[in-house]
């Protein structure tokens, strides 16, 4: 069985900084992998390397047994929601339509077949009505579902989802996770799903890939989310508490994941509605 993603003593550098150093792991077909780690640990960088945008500086990185190549149609990608222009009134259908063969020169055209394909994928993520809605009127959750539908077009075998839960409230986070899990199980798609918080993903993921301090550890949650492993990855003393089906990763009495999550909200990606996220974290000490 060929691994979907395989790193063999691979190192990845960005501008002199070694984001991953001598990392080795292998992801099997059909696995749902939660990608976690502190900010700047290289979650986005790893995905960009898999996409062929960033060659490893040492070692080997293989995708379906071959070197990564830019524009690989077997990979679906959902980048971090950063550059969707807030005032854009273009409807969902044309937004996704622009990405079909978007790398080819010439004028855009949307055939009946393309249209059918877009509507079919929107159906799969339960978002048919977004085809005719302008982007500027979609909520964060709706946009993520639109982008997810887009990533699924062309039947990819590997899906890279970069922080798809960012700026979503608890309810919409659960919807996104459920949709990804359902669609990818049905189609046998391998998923790399990066997130700040482990707990929402606990019921959905097969294994977790934890990044930090230039290292990468892949394994089950029981194997990886432990005090010794995480202390090494965070480069500080980490305590791991398990309570009521939740796992809390603590550093000096503070929840490191919640802190990172809050930090992200400071940058204002959300649309000001009901953030249910870490309410239950407030009274656990």
């Amino acid at each position, binding site marked *: 069985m060929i691994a979907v993603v395989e790193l063999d003593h691979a190192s990845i550098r960005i501008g002199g900084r070694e984001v991953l150093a001598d990392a080795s792991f292998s992801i099997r077909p059909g696995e749902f992998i939660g990608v976690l780690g502190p900010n700047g640990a290289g979650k986005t960088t790893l995905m*960009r390397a898999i*996409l*062929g*945008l960033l060659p490893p500086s040492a070692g080997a990185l293989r995708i379906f047994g071959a070197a990564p190549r*830019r*524009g690989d149609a077997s*990979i679906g*990608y959902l*980048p*971090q929601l*950063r*550059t*969707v*222009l807030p005032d*854009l*009134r*273009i*409807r969902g259908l*044309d*937004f996704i*339509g*622009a*990405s079909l*063969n*978007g*790398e*080819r*020169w*010439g*004028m*855009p055209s949307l055939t009946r077949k393309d249209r059918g394909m877009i509507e079919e994928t929107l159906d799969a993520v339960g978002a048919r*009505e977004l085809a*005719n*809605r*302008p982007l500027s*009127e*979609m*909520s*964060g*959750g*709706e946009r993520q579902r639109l982008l997810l539908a*887009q990533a699924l077009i062309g039947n990819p075998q590997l899906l890279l989802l970069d922080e798809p839960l960012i700026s979503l409230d608890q309810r919409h986070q659960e919807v996104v996770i459920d949709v990804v899990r359902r669609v990818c199980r049905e189609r046998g798609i391998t998923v790399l799903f990066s997130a700040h918080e482990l707990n929402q993903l606990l019921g959905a993921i097969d294994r977790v890939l934890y990044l930090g301090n230039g290292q990468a550890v892949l394994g089950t949650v029981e194997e990886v989310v432990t005090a010794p492993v995480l202390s090494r990855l965070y480069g500080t003393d980490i305590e791991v508490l398990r309570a009521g089906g939740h796992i809390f990763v603590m550093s000096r009495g503070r929840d490191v994941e919640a802190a990172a999550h809050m930090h992200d909200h400071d940058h204002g990606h959300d*649309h000001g*509605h009901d953030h249910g996220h870490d309410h239950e974290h407030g009274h656990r000490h």
Partner: protein
Amino acid sequence: MATIMATIMATITSTDIVTDMFQYEFMNNAFAAASMVAVVSGIVGFFLVMRGQTFAGHALSHIGFAGATGAGLIGLAPLWGLVGFTLAAGMAMGLLSDRISNRDVAIGVVLALALGFGLLFLHYYTSFATQATALLFGNVFAVDRTMIATLAALGAVTLAGLAAIMRPLIFATLQPELAEAKGVPLRLVSTAFLAIVALAVSECAQIVGVLMVFTLMVGPAAAAQRVTTGLWSGLILSAALALAEAWLGIVIAYQTDWPVSFCIAVLSALGYFLCLAASSYGPRHPSAAER
């Protein structure tokens, strides 16, 4: 306001005045030139607004002013100075990419510098001063047959260039990260687009002047994007609005003896604010409230 409306109504309804208007060659030339320029401006402007690069477009026109006055100084036709300078500046902006072209401050500094140079060139070529007003604010009634041919050729090149890069341009505009991953050469696309904008700005400046390219390049496009959600419907409406505003502006100017660029500017602003109001008070999809 009442007199303006009365003038407009009288103008539109009176066929006598329309046939009267077309007796003059300068009026026919004005309509021909304005039609071509309006369509090119409306279409290129649509992408300029979509990409959020309107300020870069404005800066290009100011740089073009320095080019046009500089060309006058060394005895060349202003249009070629305009085209040369805006093309060079547009491509430089594209190559410097994110570092310059999307930074308002950097663009503002370059814009002011360009106007300064324009002034310096005027200072040394004083007989050129009468043409300066035409450059700054346009003079569509002075367009001759040769200029129409030139504008047609420039317009054809501009639209052909846009057609060639349209698909990756839209993709790169909407989702740059994904477009990069799928193999779109982002820098090449954005440089080519700014070169196309430079050509469109040069054309547009011939009709409404460098200070007022917004009236045809930004007003109609921004208005169209307020009331449409489809790509093609938006493009067509943008071009149609630009065309209607240019035509009506010329008619009003002919009747009232007001400057053409003023009339087009008023119509452009009117069109934008009407569309803005229509989209703000128009029907909204109910489930938008669900967020």
